């Protein structure tokens, strides 16, 4: 009996917290955590709407589920590559503070 808006607000809150994490954390790995949170909020939204549509349409809805599965894979891939980059950056620079990795500065 939970209204859909609660789920959406909850995911929005999670998203904003993740966003804040990404924007403010110094440590690159923390940024990745923030990203994880944001991705999860998306999936929550997705499944909330999936549930909403199944309830409304009274029919099987596969696409949201497939979409969610793909979000999972993308999140996994992204974390793997992100962490690999961070580790190799760490090996080169001995520091993974996002602020220091600014060689692309103009």
């Amino acid at each position, binding site marked *: 009996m939970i209204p859909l808006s609660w789920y959406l607000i909850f995911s929005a809150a999670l998203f904003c917290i993740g*966003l804040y994490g*990404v*924007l*403010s954390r110094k440590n690159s790995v923390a*940024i990745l955590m923030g990203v994880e949170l944001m991705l999860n909020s998306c999936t929550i939204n997705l499944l909330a709407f999936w549930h909403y549509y199944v309830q409304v349409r009274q029919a099987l809805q596969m696409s949201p589920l497939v979409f969610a599965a793909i979000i999972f894979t993308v999140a996994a891939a992204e974390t793997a590559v992100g962490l690999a980059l961070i580790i190799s950056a760490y090996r080169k620079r001995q520091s993974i503070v*996002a*602020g220091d*990795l*600014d*060689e*692309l*500065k*103009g």
Partner: protein
Amino acid sequence: MNTQLLLWLIPLPPLLAFGVIVLGANRRNGLSTALALGGVGLSFLASMVVFFRVIGIEDLSEHPIGSAVNWLPTADTWLKVGVQIDPLSAVTLFFVAWTILMIFLYSVGYHNFGQPKGDHDVPGLPPHGATVKDGHGSHKVMSIEPMYARFFALISLFAFAMYLLVVSDNLLTLFVGWEIMGLCSYLLIGFWYAKDSARKAAVKAFLTTRVGDMFMMIGLAALYSITGSLSYQDIFGNEAVMHALATTTSPVFGLSWAGFIGLLIFLGVVGKSAQFPLHVWLPDAMEGPTPVSAMIHAATMVSAGVYLAIRSFPLISAGWEQGAPLTVPMVVLTAVGAFTALFAATIALAQNDIKRVLAYSTISQLGYMIAALGMGAYVAATFHLVTHAFFKALLFLGSGSVIHGMEHGVLHTGAHIDPQDMYNMGGLRKKMPRTFWTFLIGGFALSGFPMVTAGFWSKDEILSGAFNGGHIFVFVVLALSAFLTAFYTMRQITLTFLGKPRTKAAEHAHETPWTMTVPLMVLAVFAVSAGWAGIPEAFPGLGGLLPNWFEEFVGSMLHNVHGEVHHSLVPLFTSLVVALGGLLLGWLVYRSVDRADAADPMAEPLGLAFVAFKKKYGIDELYQLIFIRPAEWFAETFTYKWVDKRLLDGILHSIARLGILLGGWLRRSFDLPVINGGGNGIARGTRELGSAMRGIQSGRIQQYMIAAIAVLALIGLAFYYLVFMA
């Protein structure tokens, strides 16, 4: 070979000779001599054949033999050019052929053909002799002329021009021959171009004749524009045309067109035959080698002028009947002719150079012919033209052999005297007998020794023409100049031949070789026999013996003027007195001159006049003053200094300065500030913009994300506002 073809062929051989010598044979003297003589010989034979064929024809003047060819297309008709033979050109052809041949033969010897090359002879200077070593030591010998072949080429061209002039049937080819002769005279006078005086004389000759030619050209142009043709048949032979020309008045001084054109052509003649105003070039033309002087002053050039005057007599005497008052041009002719005769005779008195005396005598004799023509004595003028050509050529070649002998003496003695000055000569009678006798005949012919010489008959004709024509004043002037002529001729003969040699060189003078004296003898024969062709019937005694062939042959040309000629004894008598008196006086006065540097016996009696004569009335200085200096001034200062230097250069320089100023101003005001400034400004602007924007790319990822979020928020807001609110 019919006559027309022969006529066409007469001028050709000398031209071919000229071409071959110039192009091919200018190094081989022998070949060039052969070519030149061959060419002249051929044309001599052709002209003799034509002459003897033609004299037999009765109505030659009405129907002259000739042929014409289409030369220039003038719109639908063609300008015809061709050859023609009539009594006047036949006679001229005769004496021209003979004199040119004799001069060619003479010049072979004159230029020491066969002699060794000169030691230090430089082309452009007369030969200075060569030292020859033979049995008994070395002695100086005459050296060959360095530009021997070139000389023969040029005189061949000269011959071609003369033949072309004589043979042509229209004024245009006459004018072509006229101009080529002008060119050749320039080249030949200036033959020894290394001598500065020769160069100046050549230019002087060319320019003064040029003046005359210019008027003549205007005359021809006027004639052509009115009548539409230039050939003799169409104009002189055509009554209607002549009448039209005589009656229509030209815009100038009220003269009739014929008169006006006649005058213009006469001015050309004055230039060419060295009449009074334009005679200055002839004495200076003596710079050239003697055969050239002979050619120019005796045979061709000057006689060409008189020939043209005679040819254009119908124009000059348009509307004149025998005994009627002279037309304006005829008056002019008479005045100019008479005055020139007297004027030149007086100058000749005071000249020491043997060739200059003859030059001035030529000018006075031409004055005679022009005066005769002016008075209507057409046949007399032509007759005198023919006889004069013979004995004047003889005198010139004679003086050439005298000079040649004197040079021989100069080489022999090594003395530095002027071989042409008569006062250095004297007593050459014994040294150069052949030259002396031929020179004597020539001299007597010139001064008109009665009965024997041709000169007497022709001069007498003129005097009687003048007298009978009623021009007493002209008769007196002509008689006086005849007296003076006789006087200076005898002066010349006594100074050079009689008496004792005044200088060592004169003692060693040597008779010139046969190649030079044979032409003298031939000319001497003609100088005597030419007169017999024109003995007037009315002459007491000899009148009837020989038919006056010349009178009816050439007289037939004046087919429209047949006034009968009444004859009186007065001119005959005066010419006798004048000739003999002059000769006697001359011999008496100059007999006693025995030193080279003696003053001229005539000096103190004539006093100031003599000085005037010697200075040639200062005409040259006058011209120098009036024409040349102003011209130079005009060229040098006015055009060069003022116009060119100040005006034009000034304009150019100012334009250049203006350009520089403008350029500088443009650069300062437009180029630097606007373009450079603009360019630099843009560059600086972009650089500043770039550095300003650099801050944005700080390399910190989170900063980018914040920016993204901000933008997202803004757009979201805007979108929300637009979509939901509106």
